[in-house]
């Protein structure tokens, strides 16, 4: 009976997964209805640490999707994050988290993610590179408004965006301008959100 219970539990979990929404931890107010953290997303980061992305709650986040073997646009996504970081004061920098979610979790193991983080000298205090479960990628892309298609040669065709989330996971702004010259209006929105955010 025990294995059957396990299967049943797994079944109920999988049925409820999408619909249940993230369950607020005890003592925490329920998530707002327009929070992307309503979608439960289990991630594993560049250090092999597993977490739900809603654990980023409480801190302003800059979120994007990428994959490590990408030759063209993805390095520009990292450039964009770094360029925005550069425009901020040290205090502002401390209040910001940058989360890059892989659209290629089968190949983007913690080791692959760490290689990029090290090569691009990304401060681990701020930058999280992480892979979701393969079956969750399209849903993550769905709440972030990112489109992608896996190509026959292992590359991905995808749109690129940086999405600014407030501490509750609500989308405040987005930019599709990639590279070392960020959109000044977007920078301003990042600064505004950090001013009102608690540390």
């Amino acid at each position: 009976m025990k294995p059957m219970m396990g299967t049943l539990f797994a079944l109920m979990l999988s049925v409820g997964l999408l619909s249940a929404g993230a369950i607020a931890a005890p003592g925490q107010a329920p998530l707002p209805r327009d929070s992307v953290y309503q979608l439960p997303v289990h991630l594993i980061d560049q250090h092999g640490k597993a977490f739900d992305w809603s654990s980023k709650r409480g801190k302003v986040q800059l979120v994007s999707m990428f994959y490590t073997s990408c030759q063209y646009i993805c390095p520009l996504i990292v450039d964009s994050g770094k360029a925005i970081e550069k425009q901020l004061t040290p205090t502002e920098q401390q209040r910001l988290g940058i989360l890059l979610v892989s659209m290629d979790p089968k190949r983007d193991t913690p080791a692959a993610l760490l290689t990029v983080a090290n090569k691009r000298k990304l401060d681990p205090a701020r930058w999280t590179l992480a892979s979701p479960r393969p079956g969750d990628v399209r849903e993550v892309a769905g709440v972030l408004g990112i489109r992608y298609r896996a190509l026959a040669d292992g590359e991905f065709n995808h749109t690129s965006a940086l999405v600014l989330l407030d501490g509750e996971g609500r989308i405040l702004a987005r930019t599709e301008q990639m590279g070392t010259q960020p959109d000044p209006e977007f920078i301003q929105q990042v600064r505004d959100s950090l001013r009102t955010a608690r540390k």
Partner: protein
Amino acid sequence: MRRILALLLLLPIASLAAGGGGYVDLPAGKFRTALKYEDRKGDTRIAPFALMRKPVTNAEFLAFVQAHPQWRRDRVGRVFAEPRYLSHWVAADKLGNTALPQQPVVQISWFAAQAYCKAQGARLPSWDEWEYAAAADETRRDARSDPAWRERILRWYSRPSNQALPRAGLQTPNAYGVQDLHGLVWEWTEDFSSLLVSADNRDQGDADNAKFCGAGALSMDDRDNYAVLMRVAMLSSLNAADTTTNLGFRCAKDLE
């Protein structure tokens, strides 16, 4: 323990009831898509799958919402469904006169469609599967080269969309036994957001388009197939939380 057993007994019945017209099995096949993928040459292989005979109806979706109240329009996360979600129902848990039980459900987001299919132990069909099933007319598995058939489909697209929707399941089944793939509502696919069509037709297939990583932009291989072209243009313009007055869905399942 007894409660779990009772639940186990209930599960198949509940999914049958929600399934309505049930599923039709489609055989494996090789298929020439009307789309042009730069990275994909030759035929697309379709694995055998099962597809719902009809689109999901208001009555079926109401049963789902009652069983999963987090999908009520007054409770659903805004990231999963925009404010127009199920807005044609008279109340969050009632259809009313503007949404008849046997009409296909519309004003439905991709997330809501996904959740419905998941609760059935199913999934949304892929674009390839949808296009494969929709290539058939009543007698032929691939009627796409027949100008008369194309004409018939196009006539539906030219009808104004502000008229009341017919009931699901009224049209003659196609060669696979599937109904209403054309002529009733547009339908979500699981991979709708993989359809990356450049906004400007003339840019199609331009690898320099900086919006996309690498080559592989999508364009039309069969430019006379307007029915497919319009579906793709529509799906490629949507976000996952969007809903429209004539966009519904049906579920699919793996076979084997």
